[in-house]
């Protein structure tokens, strides 16, 4: 997929969810009620309602989405900045390339114990692990786009006597908007997944902690309900990013 390529790809129609809804309905009405580990969907909603009444649902959602937003913003900023540096400087790219490959293949789960040792069960620890594992799609996209910028475009900036700052703002950044957007679109679901993973692993806070708690006390309807909720949040995030991408595509177009 290229930025600005397929306009229909950004926001898939919601009717695509129909098979999922049909599946859930079938589960509700056709599945045997006796199996305790597989409660029907209406039970999930009741369990979520219980959680809401107890006052722990909204704070959990808020915590998770806050971590998500913070980690995504950090990933975009750090990923883009590093991507530009590495894409524009061959020397830096050679110097840092191998170490970056090392970090890139590091699984988030393996990082959690180390991060906990250093930072404890804190919000910073979550942000550290999540950002480190989700900057890659943005960094790599921006790096390759920064390498491909037409040299004539940058020479044009020089012969038109644009200042360094104006060259960054008017030529470099706009040339990379598409790559940043595409990287963000790939990174966003990863950020959400890793936030939940860290929350489940550390039982610190957020939806992940609620899932982990419910699972350890065998409240299976709550687990299913929270997983469904996560899915809905993920879908909302994707729609939002896709929609913002469609807006950006009016701005950056392929040459």
């Amino acid at each position: 997929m290229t930025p600005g390529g397929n306009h229909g790809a950004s926001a898939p129609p919601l009717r695509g969810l129909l098979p999922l809804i049909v599946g859930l309905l079938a589960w509700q009405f056709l599945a045997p009620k006796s199996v305790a580990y597989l409660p029907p969907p209406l039970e999930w909603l009741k369990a979520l309602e219980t959680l809401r009444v107890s006052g722990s649902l909204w704070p959990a959602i808020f915590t998770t989405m806050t971590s998500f937003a913070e980690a995504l913003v950090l990933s975009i900023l750090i990923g883009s900045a590093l991507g530009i540096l590495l894409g524009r400087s061959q020397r830096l790219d050679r110097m840092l390339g191998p170490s970056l490959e090392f970090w890139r293949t590091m699984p988030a789960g393996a990082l959690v114990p180390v991060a906990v040792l250093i930072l404890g069960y804190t919000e910073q620890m979550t942000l550290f692990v999540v950002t480190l594992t989700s900057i890659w799609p943005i960094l790599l996209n921006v790096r390759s786009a920064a390498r491909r910028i037409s040299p004539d475009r940058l020479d044009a900036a020089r012969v038109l006597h644009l200042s360094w700052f104006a060259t960054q703002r008017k030529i470099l950044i706009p040339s990379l908007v598409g790559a940043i957007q595409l990287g963000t679109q790939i990174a966003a679901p990863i950020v959400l997944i890793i936030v939940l993973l860290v929350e489940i692993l550390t039982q610190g806070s957020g939806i992940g902690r609620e899932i982990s708690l419910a699972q350890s006390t065998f409240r299976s309807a709550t687990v299913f309900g929270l997983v469904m909720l996560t899915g809905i949040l993920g879908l909302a995030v994707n729609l939002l990013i896709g929609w913002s991408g469609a807006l950006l595509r009016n701005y950056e177009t392929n040459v």
Partner: protein
Amino acid sequence: MSVAERAAGGGSGPEMQSSDDGIAFRCRSLAVDLGIADYKRRIIENLDIEVPRRQFVCILGESGVGKTTLLRVFGGLVPAAPGSRLELNGQAISGPPQGAVFVFQNYAGSLLPWRTARKNVELGLEETLPKAERQRRAMVALEQVGLADRANDYPRQMSGGMQQRVQIARALALEPRLLLMDEPFGALDAMTRENLQIELRRIHQASGATIMFITHDVDEAVLLADRLIVLRGKPAAVGLDIVSPLPKERDQITTKELPAFLELRHTIYEMLRGHGTRA
């Protein structure tokens, strides 16, 4: 109309008469090296050129002889070797000089696709001129290249010839004293190229800029130039330097039928061929 307006505007500018000896551009014992450290290759050596103001100079040479490199040196994009002297209006050139604008062959790579034609033309004016003034200058420049009615179109909505005209307008908007053009019509189809050649001649007459124009197309060079310079050798130096005997007014049909045109064309071809057999 717009041409006359432009000519009046350009002629009355204070910079136009400011300098002394009528020489717009001068290079003395110019040498250029490409590559780094142990892999340096001398591309150009001992090149002397003096270009009077308002002259239209075409620089020819076989492909690979260093034409584009030479123009990039003139434009301050590539440094000359130590000991070279380069001057624009009496001022030494180090880095892209004020008053000189480069027009690239690759119009698609050099225009910004997220800006309209007018905003592309304004790019070089944004740091120095207030909004109203630069819009006016951009529109004048677009009018000069015949694209005033396409000011709000994006480059992707235009043909290759129109995009190249936008790039020329972007250069003209800076009211340059020296235009450096690197095979600007090389990527265009024959018909568009012929139209743009005559237009460029007209723009040159009206604007009073000095033009250095790189091409490998002999007919194009003979049609356009007041003076022709052929580069040859390795490293390259001036092989031929002649002032065109053709009248100032040129067009695609009658100019090309003139005996002087054919004679000049013959001389240039012989020069280029001669080098080919010798090497």
